[in-house]
C-alpha cells in the first residue's frame, strides 16, 4: 500500500524551534524532600505490617517487599525523579519534562494558562520549598505541576507565568 511519508505531511522543514529557552532543574533540596516523604511512607507501611506480625504471627517474609519498596522510594527513586525533571519557560509556551518510569513531556501555551498557584504542604514549608501548579481549561490534563522549587523561585515563576498568560505576546 502506498502511504505518504509522515515527513511530507509535517511542514517541509521542521518549524524553527523557539529560541531554546534555558532548561531549568528543580531545587536540589527536592531530592531530600522526596526522600523524607518516602521514608515517612515507608515507616507508615512498615508499622502497618508489624501489627499483623505481632498480633497474628504473620510471617516476617511479608515485610520484605514492603522493605524493598521502602528502600527504593527513599534511596533511589527521588534521585531518579530529580534527574528526569526539567522545565523550560519559552516565548510562547512552558514545557515540563518529568518521570523516570513513564516519561512525560507536557506543553502548555501561555495563551492557554488560566491561572497559576503556588502550593506548600507542611513538609515543603519547613524546608522552604513550594510547588507551582499551572491550570488550563483542559479537562484531564488540566493541571501541570512543578514541585520542589525554592520558595522564592516558585513565586517568581508563578508571577512570570501569570503575567505571560494575561498579556501573552503581541500579535
Amino acid at each position, binding site marked *: 500500500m502506498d*502511504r*505518504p511519508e*509522515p515527513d511530507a*505531511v*509535517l*511542514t517541509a522543514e*521542521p*518549524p524553527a*524551534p523557539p529560541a531554546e529557552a534555558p532548561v531549568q532543574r528543580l531545587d536540589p533540596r527536592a531530592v531530600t524532600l522526596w526522600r523524607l516523604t518516602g521514608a515517612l511512607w515507608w515507616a507508615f507501611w512498615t508499622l502497618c505490617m508489624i501489627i499483623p506480625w505481632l498480633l497474628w504471627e504473620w510471617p516476617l517474609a511479608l515485610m520484605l517487599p514492603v522493605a524493598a519498596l521502602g528502600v527504593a522510594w527513599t534511596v533511589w527513586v527521588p534521585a531518579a525523579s530529580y534527574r528526569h525533571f526539567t522545565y523550560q519557560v519559552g516565548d*510562547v*509556551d512552558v514545557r515540563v519534562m518529568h518521570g523516570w*518510569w*513513564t*516519561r*512525560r*513531556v*507536557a*506543553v*502548555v*501555551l501561555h*495563551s*492557554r*494558562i*488560566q*491561572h*497559576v*498557584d*503556588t*502550593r*506548600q*504542604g*507542611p513538609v515543603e*514549608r519547613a524546608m522552604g520549598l513550594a510547588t507551582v501548579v499551572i*491550570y*488550563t*481549561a*483542559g*479537562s*484531564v*490534563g*488540566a493541571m*501541570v505541576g512543578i514541585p520542589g522549587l525554592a520558595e*522564592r523561585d516558585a*513565586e*517568581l515563576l*508563578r*508571577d*512570570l507565568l*501569570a*503575567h505571560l*498568560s*494575561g*498579556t*501573552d505576546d503581541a*500579535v
Partner: protein
Amino acid sequence: MPSDAAAARLDADGRRLHPLTLVFSALGIARGMLWPAVAGGFGFGDGELDRMLPIILGVLAIPALIGAAAKYALYRWRLDADELLLRSGVLNRQNRVIPLARVQNVEVRQSLLQRVFGVAELRVETAGTGLQAEAVLSVLGVGEAQSLRADLLARRRAQATAAAVDVADGAPAAEPVDHAAVPPLAKLSTWDLLLAGATANEAGVIAAAAAGLLQFTEELPGDVFERVIRDAVERTEGAYAVVGIAGMLLLMLVGWMISILGSLVRYHGFTLVVDGGEMRKRFGLLTVHEASVPLQRVQAIRVEETFLRRWLGLASLMIETAGGSPGQRGGAEAFVPIARRRDVGRLVRGIFADAEVDAAQFQQVHPKAERRLRRRYLITFLLFVWAPFWAARWFDIQPGGMLAPYVAVLLPLPWLMARWQYASRGWALPPGYVMARSGVLNRVTWIIPDRKLQTLHVVDSPFQRRLGLSTLVVDTAAGGKQAAVIDLAHSTARRLLEELAVRARAAAIASRVQVRTRAAEVEAAEVEAGPGANDDPCPSDHLPA
C-alpha cells in the same frame, strides 16, 4: 508586571475577608461535622440528652472555631490592574494568581442568612470544566462584594481589549434569525433508527444483562424454566452443547430486539438544526428531548463506527463540549446518532465550517506498534485458552473433543487482531484541525480544531521506550475523554508536538485578531449610534470558552 512578588504585594496591601467570616465559616465547618458529631454524641452520651448535648456541641464547636479563626487570619486577597491575587490555607498554603484577562464569570451570591447580616460571597470563574469556581471569597460585605465585582469586570474589559484575550470566534448574532427558514442539518427516519438500533454494539451488553437475569428464573412459578430446558434436552437427545448455543443465540436475539426498540423510542423524529451559532436537537417518542448547544462549546467531534456499521457504510457522530455556565459540566453527547459515512464530511462542516475531513490523509503509527499489540493479544489468548482448561479440571469435566477446535478457532486471533488494530490507528493534519483514529470493534475518529487545543503531552512507558515509541495525548476543554495517538515513533511524536504547538498558537492569534476587529466594529457602531443607544452596561460579561 513581575516586579515585586505577589506575596510581597499581598503582605503589603492584601485585604482580609469580612469579620463575619468567623461566623459563616464556623457554621460551614460545623455543618460538615454534624453527622459525626451526632453519632459521637449518641455513642458517648449513652442516649441521655444532657450528656449528649455538650459532647455534640464540643465536637462541632472546636474544629469550627479553630478553622474559622485560621481562615479569617490567613486569607488575603488583592485586586491589581491585571491580576487577582489570593492566599489561603493552613496546612497547605496556597497562593493563587488569576490574570484578569482569563476571568469568564463573576458572581455575587447571598444565602438567606448572609442576606440578614449584609454579607455575600463572591465567586470568580475562568474557563474550564466549570466544576468549581477558581476564587471564592466568602464572605465579604455586600457593598464590598458588588463594588469588587464591578471593579473586576471593568479591569478585565480593559485587559481584554488591550491585550487581546483569547476567546474563540462567533459572538451571538446581532439580529434575530428566522428559525423556521433554516433547513435541518440532519433528520433521521424510522428506518435510520432501526438500523441504528440493529447495528449498535449495545446488543451484546443487553444480551449479557439478559443472561444475568437468568438467575431469577428460579422464581418463576411451576418450574417453567427447568421444564423448558428439560424438554429441549429430551428432544435433541441429550446434546447439551446444542441447547446451550441455542440458548445463547436466543438471548442475543432478545438483546438485539431490545436495542432496536430502544433506539426507535429514544431517537424518534430526530432533527438537528444549526442556526445562529447554536445547534438544536429534538428527539424522543415518550419523552421529547430538546437540547441546544452553542457551537462555541464544541471542543471536538468524535466519529464512531462499530464493526457492523463500517460494513454497512454507516457511522455515528458525537460532540465533546466544554462546561458552559457555572455548574454545567461538559462531556460527550450525541450529535447525529446514525448517518451515512459519505455524509460525515458535510455534517462535520455544519459545526466546523472549514474542516476538510474527507480529504484527510491518515498517517500510520510506527510498525513496531504491531509487535507490541501482538504480544499483548498473545497474552490475552493464552489466558483464554488456559482459563477454560483450568475450569474444566476444577469442575472435573473432560473437555475432550471441544478443546481442540476451540483453540484452533482462537489461534490466529492474536495475529489478526494485532494487524487490524495496527491498521486502524492513524493521525492526520488537515488544515486547521488534527485527527486521530483507532479501534477495531469500534473505530473512533477524533476531529479537533487547532483553536481548541489545550495542553499537549508526549508520554512513553518503559516498554514503549525500549521500542522507540511514544504516545501523543491531545487535551481539550471537554470534560471527559482525551484524544491520543498511541505508539508513534518517538521522533514523529516530538515533531507532531511542535507542529501542533505552532498551529495552536497561530489559531489563538487568529481568533484574537477577530476579537479585536469585532471590538473595533462594536465601538464604531456605538459611536455612530450615539450615546445611550446601547443600554447593556456589560456587553461582554459572559465570554464563551
